[in-house]
């Protein structure tokens, strides 16, 4: 095993971000529960936030933190509206399976 570097390479952070993003995509594609699908989207947003903060470190600018903050705000708004939509769908159809909610097909 090679010795650990003194400072963490910036590519490690970006690779971790890519791993988390791909796991979020996998959850989005494979899970059938609409709430879990929604949480996978939050995981993808978090992975992109990590990239923003990492590039902010690399460029020595604070702008990446600002973008990350805006992503958080938009995620909060999205969670509020999305969960309200899920509540309404459940009230009308009594199901959380995304395959069951297909009235927009065709």
């Amino acid at each position, binding site marked *: 095993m090679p010795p*650990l*570097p*003194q*400072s*963490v*390479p*910036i*590519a490690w*952070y*970006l*690779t*971790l971000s*890519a791993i*988390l993003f*791909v*796991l979020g*995509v*996998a*959850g989005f594609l494979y*899970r*059938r*529960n609409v*709430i*879990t699908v*929604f*949480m*996978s989207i*939050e995981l993808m947003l*978090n992975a992109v*936030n*990590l990239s923003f*903060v990492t590039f*902010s*470190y*690399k460029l*020595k*600018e*604070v702008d990446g*933190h*600002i973008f*990350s*903050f*805006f992503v*958080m*705000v*938009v*995620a*909060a*708004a*999205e969670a*509020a*509206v999305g*969960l*309200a*939509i899920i*509540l*309404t769908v*459940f*009230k*009308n159809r009594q199901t959380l399976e995304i395959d069951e909610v297909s009235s927009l097909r065709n």
Partner: protein
Amino acid sequence: MDAILFLLFAAIAVICAVNLVVQTHPISSALSLVGVMGALAALYLLLGGEFIAAAQLIVYAGAIMVLFIFVIMLLNAGAEHKALKKSWVKFAGIPLLVALLGLVSFLVQTLIPQTVGVNFGGFTHGTALDVGRALFTAYLLPFEVTSVLILIAILGAIVLARKEID
């Protein structure tokens, strides 16, 4: 020391993310997502983002995940019963995702200069003072527009959750 801390929290984040995808019960997935967010907050601190780490814990792990768990409990959501129907999707999906991950990792390793390393304390302009100064000078208009967005989201959530749509 930096590398040990990074590897520790990266391992926590990846294990919790895998758990999120693998678990069938939504509550287990939600708790795994809280673990991912906590580990990411620690990584933000290592990168010098004090404000963003605190906001991550308060907004994401605190507010948004509580909202998720409220909805899961309100709807009494149980474990998933049905597996994915199309079997070819199951077999083609994982290799394609691994290929995507390999491509992105390759691009990151080749395009990003290897000389830049992250040390704790190497970037000290992520405090609430600096973020606030940038937010209220250069990014004032987006910040104000965001407040309108939040207002619309509140109204939308109230309208949607109040009554059934015919």
